[in-house]
C-alpha cells in the first residue's frame, strides 16, 4: 500500500464524481456526485497525513467532513425548495437567472 495508490484511488473517485456532476440532472444525484468528490479529497488528506507523519491532515479531513454535512443539509433544503417551486428537482429547471 503506497501513497501513490491512495492518490490514484482518490483521483479515480474524484473523476467519477466529476462525471456524475456533469451528467446528472437530478439535484439529489448531483449531491451524490459532489459527495464523492469531497470524499476523494478527504482520502488525499488522510493519505498525506500518514505520509508526512502529521496529524493535521486528519484534522482537516474532520473539518471537511463537517463542512460536507453542512453542505448536504443546505443542499437538500434547496432541493426541497426547488421541488416546491417546480414540482421537480431537475437542476436545469432552476434557470430563472437566465432572464
Amino acid at each position, binding site marked *: 500500500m503506497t501513497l501513490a495508490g491512495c492518490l490514484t484511488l482518490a483521483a479515480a473517485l474524484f473523476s*467519477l464524481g466529476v462525471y456524475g456532476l456533469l451528467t446528472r440532472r437530478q439535484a439529489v*444525484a448531483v449531491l451524490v456526485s459532489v459527495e*464523492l468528490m469531497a*470524499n476523494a479529497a478527504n482520502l488525499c488528506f488522510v493519505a498525506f497525513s500518514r505520509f508526512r507523519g502529521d496529524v493535521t491532515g*486528519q484534522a482537516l479531513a474532520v473539518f471537511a467532513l463537517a463542512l460536507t454535512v453542512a453542505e448536504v443539509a443546505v443542499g437538500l433544503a434547496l432541493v426541497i425548495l426547488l421541488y416546491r417551486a417546480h414540482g421537480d428537482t431537475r437542476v436545469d429547471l432552476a434557470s430563472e437567472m437566465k432572464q
Partner: protein
Amino acid sequence: MEGTFFMVLAACALVPAWLAVRGANLIHAALWLGASLLATAAVYAMLGASFLAGVQVLVYVGGVITLMIFGVMMTRRHEGLVALAESRHQGRAAAIAVTLFAVIAQAINATDGLDAPLSAPVSANGSALGRALVVDHVLAFEALSLLLLAAIVGAVVIARRRDPPDAREAEVPS
C-alpha cells in the same frame, strides 16, 4: 497482503461509486454512495486513521445517506424514483473525467518518492487528533461549529413552508 487488501478495497470503493453516478434509481444511487463511502472508511482505517473511519461511518453513512434518501422520498412520487433523461453530455463528461484522471495520474507518476511503503501510523489513539482539533486549530474548529449552526438554521429557513400569502404567491407562475 496489504497491497492486495488495498486493491480489493479500492475496487469496493470504485464500483459502487460508478453505480452511484450511473444508477437510474436515486434511492439506489444514494445507497451505492454509502457503500463507496464505507469502503473509503476502511481505507482510512488501513491508513491508521481509525477515528476518522468511525466518523465517516457514523456521519456519512449513518447521517448523510439517510438525509439523502429522505430528500429523495420527500421530493418524488413513487413512480418518479427513477431519474429521467440522465443521458446528457455523456461523451463530453466522460472525456473530461478521463482527461482529469489521466492528468492527475500522470502527475502522481511523475512525482518521485510516492511509491515507498507508508511509514507507521501517526498515532494509535485519537489523542493527537483531539489535540490538533481543539488546541492547534481551535479557531477553525469554533468557526466551523458556527458554520454548522448557520447551515442548519439556513436549511430550516430555506426549506420552511412559507406563510399562506407567500405560498399562494409562489403558486402563481411567474
